């Protein structure tokens, strides 16, 4: 049985939702993960629903939030794509930096922020950055939910239309710091800490410590976490990194 049984490119959100309501269908943003997985032979095969024609690739300021369409490419967020997308306004420096760190160039030009949120990868720098930016996830047909809730609930089966982050001019960027430990400078970090201070508020997010990146208590960052262990880092080493890297970034913002 062919692995991908059918390809759909809906032109309205309602059509997309209807398509995805059927079993064995999966949304694709850029396709960097869904396409390789979809093309892997399985018993049942899969139908892929491509969201590229839904007009979800804009970035706008709405009130005090910057709304980033789900189909905006990470390369556009990072400002590394050429040709440059003229429709992308200034993105907070932290998000720009972490979008660049998320993937190498060719994959960054393809992957989308909606796909990144839907996947909820534990090791995602960008998701950690979005967490400390108070991100909300916009789902078709319902009120936005926090990124934390989104990651906990695994929204992959629903249509993410956008994410929005706190945006109130330069002041809203706050002060930020990041630290990660990997095998090489551009490696996906074993554990990373991302912190953002705005006024008295300090937000700290960790990667590599839970099934998806998590906001943690800056005073006791590893509390309650049961990190996975793998060949890159055991659970106990990850706990050590979480403490060390958290201290590093919070110290930088003290």
């Amino acid at each position: 049985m062919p692995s991908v049984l059918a390809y759909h490119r809906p032109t309205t959100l309602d059509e997309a939702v209807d398509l995805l309501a059927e079993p064995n269908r999966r949304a694709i943003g850029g396709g960097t993960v869904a396409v390789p997985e979809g093309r892997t032979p399985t018993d049942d095969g899969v139908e892929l629903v491509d969201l590229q024609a839904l007009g979800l690739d804009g970035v706008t300021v709405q009130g005090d939030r910057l709304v980033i369409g789900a189909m905006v490419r990470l390369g556009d967020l990072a400002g590394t794509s050429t040709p440059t997308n003229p429709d992308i306004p200034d993105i907070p420096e932290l998000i720009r930096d972490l979008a660049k760190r998320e993937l190498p160039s060719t994959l960054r030009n393809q992957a989308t922020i909606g796909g990144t949120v839907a996947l909820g990868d534990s090791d995602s720098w960008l998701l950690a950055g979005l967490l400390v930016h108070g991100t909300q996830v916009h789902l078709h047909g319902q009120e936005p939910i926090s990124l934390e809730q989104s990651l906990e609930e695994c929204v992959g089966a629903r249509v993410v239309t956008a994410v929005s982050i706190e945006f109130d001019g330069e002041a809203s960027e706050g002060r930020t710091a990041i630290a990660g430990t990997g095998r090489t400078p551009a490696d996906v970090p074993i554990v990373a800490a991302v912190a953002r201070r705005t006024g008295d508020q300090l937000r700290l997010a960790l990667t590599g410590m839970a099934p998806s990146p998590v906001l943690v208590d800056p005073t006791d960052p590893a509390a309650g976490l049961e990190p996975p262990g793998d060949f890159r880092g055991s659970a106990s080493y990850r706990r050590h990194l979480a403490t060390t890297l958290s201290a590093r970034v919070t110290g930088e913002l003290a």
Partner: protein
Amino acid sequence: MTITIDITLNDEPHTLEVEPFDSLMAVLRRVGMTSVRYGSDTGETGASAVLIDGRLVNTDCMLAAQAAGHDIVTLEWFNKPDLHPIQAAFVATGAMQSGYTTPAMILGTWAMLGENPDPTEDEIRDMLSGILDRETAYVKPVEAVKRAAALMRGETPDPFGPLILPRMTDGKNPTPHDPADPRPEVSEAVPRLVPSIDVPEMAVVGKPEVKVDAVKLVKGNPAFTDDFVERNQLVAKVLRSPHAHANIVDIDDSKAVALEGVHAVIHHKNIPRIKYASGGQSWPNPHPHDQVSFDTKVRHVGDRVAAVAADTLEIAEEALRLIDVTYEVLPAVFDELETMEPGAPVIHDEDDTEHISDASRNIVHHIGAMRGDVDEALADADHVFEQTFRVHQVQQVPIENHISVAWLDSDERMVVRTATQVPFHTRRMLAPLIGMEIKDVRVIKPRIGGGFGAKQEMLIEDIVAHLAIATRRPVKLELTREEEFASSRTRHPQTITYTTGVSNDGELVAQNMRLIGNTGPFGTHAYTVQTVTGLRGLTSYNCPNKRFDCDVVYTNIPVPGAYRGYGAPQAEFALEAHMEDIAHSLDLDPIEFKRKNWVKVGDELNIAPHLGEQAVLEEELDEYPKVMSNGIEECVSQGMRAIEWHRRDDPAWVAPADRPNIRRGLGFAFCMHGTAIPFLDMGGCSIKINDDGSFNMLIGATDLGTGADTVIGQIAAEVLGVALDDIKVYSSDTDVTPFDTGAYASSTTYISGTAAKLAAEKVRDRIKERAATLLGVKEPCSIELRDKRAYAPDGSSVSLEEIALDSLHVNDHEQIMGTASYVSPECPPPFAAQFVELEVDIDTGQVTIIKMVMAVDCGVAINPITASGQVEGGMLQALGYGHCEEFAFDDNGRMINAELGPYKIYRADEMPEIETYLIQTMEDSGPFGAKAVAEIPKDGVAPAIRNAILMATGVAINDLPFTPERVWNALQA
């Protein structure tokens, strides 16, 4: 359900019928875009990248249907008679080795420069970050992009070539390093060349000539195995074992055979059981011959079970799912020490494999060699040191996976076009497996996208040949990246224990090397790799009493085999770490201690003849081989200046006050390698003149992207007094070209180059004779060839074209041609000094490599650009070996990181600074003074990192790789 899509492809509208599952890469290749190349299905290599709406995007992880309505540009868009400035820059800088990922790099450059005409190096490296390259270390591609930018801005950059540096030493004695002596400030892509007064100026040799295959590679023209499609070609897939160790109780292929579009299913029930060893080595292949095409037992996850030929890849994959296999799962063993223990599962319990040393204990070989009396010398030594080192499993990771196409030609001979380093060995080894004679088998090697030893193997050619016989149609098999990891070849894991006796004055008096080599389930290359480990581990330093004591064992890990360096990187890691620690224990400067003991000109390599395929007994030897050229002192001096070695003594540099968690270190490793296998490696060459005074050169040598065709062409051009462009090289076709053992053992320039030199000299001599006749000169030897003319002593001359026309069409008709072959009685070692600068985060264990410097004595570099490219690429792979690459398994022996990200290949945007120094010496036994350069860069990086960590932190780590947790654990100990 077929989908109709409309795309714009290279400015032309196209309407295409595609399937929902078709990748865009597959569709673009189907319509002839051969520059779009397969490296994985996950977008990790970038080999498949094209411009979509102006952006560089991978097409292997994108459906063709996603591209509907979009504008696509591939490198074929650039395919005009003249090179685009970007292409010209890639050619001029030697930015291509195999050229497999060059199309993606050029497209990315074009997109970037369209908006940003003056990019920073960081921007260039970021653009390249999605395109993996195992060959260049990205050094020359970055330079090419800078140069392309300059050209497109209308500037005229200087010609690209080596920087000539004065010597720092007299070649024999060390020179104190003066910190005030500034290191040369040029681009890292520029090789620093230190000439020798023993080497005369030459016209073509030693020059930065452009690669002879540059045009086809830079244009993305059809060049690789998959670029040539045979009519009615079928697609093969292999069913692989999910178990590390199991008996195949039964195979039921009936459902697969019945599937429409399936043309053959093969497995142990319908393929003859013929024993062989898959390593591409000279006849007779070393024992044991412990493989068959399809066995009744599987011995590692990924082992072959069955294969299918079908109309399409999707049908073949479906057919695999329909094959019912009943396994009896057996206990498995993965560790080289545990496998010898009583009660360990016996991996080869069959009764038809001969020459296993002790099958009941999984011991394939016991290898021993000795000089002097080690036990007595150790007992008498003033100091004795013993250390054990563990080295791990890594893979070559060519970006082009293994791929072969086989068919029966109109004469019903078997033709195999394949990505191989050993076409002639493959022909010889394949013929008996498929019941044909060697004369009825032809193996053709086109361009290949990297090999590094992985393709010194008859890995999949028997499968496609069996299927071609079964179907009477051409059959192609291309491994996926996951298959490449699980079923091709890797570096041998080893456990190495050194016991060394040292006198009070710092001289080695005895050295015992105990080695346990893990060869996985098959013994391919097992004997020879471990003997090279012994050779390299026991010949670099003078010592009168030496012993090599080795067991090679079977386990159930994926199969190790040949990997660039071939046992030497393991040995050099252990040896250079051991020597470093001895020096510290004796409170000696490590370099001084090593210098006191390393081999110098005139020293005997006193255990070398007793190890290897051509091993001899002491009483059979007239004399031991000696070192005849050695530039190590100059290498060390140049390297120390480049790495600013004096900083070791500055506490403020080692522990920067503003970064309390950082410790800095500098490390050194002495490197010595070999050049070819004496009395065994052989190359042949045939040269003939054409009407216009140009030459066709046929060589069996196998260019893996290394520039071998170019370098050998330069050698012939130098002899014949013509430009390289007048030598048209055709290589590696067993029906057409002379025999060559293949590309391994750092032999090609030395062996095949000498064969070319000898053949060219025959042609030259005949040209001189005819020129003498035409010019009325009595002594042909007085004729001189240069500038494509033959000159008499009086200055009169005749062109080679006139000589050719005369010989082919006018007088005493003859084809001027020459054929020669060469096998060397010697194995002159290249030497090198490897330096590394790094930082250790002592709170996390993370090691960051800042800079690598290698100064290498490779004799005369025939082409300093290709030679430096070898050094750069070799250091990149060596960096991965020492720092981050590793196979990780679950408890059942399944690899859990069989993708390039988790496995961790270095990207362009995270590379340390790299500098390459070519230190000339004159090796009289080599063609125009050349020695080897391809493998020695693999040897020193891991120990230099290890020794730099030791310097920075005081912690000695004896296991590889230096991943953060391993280092952190060591820091806590």
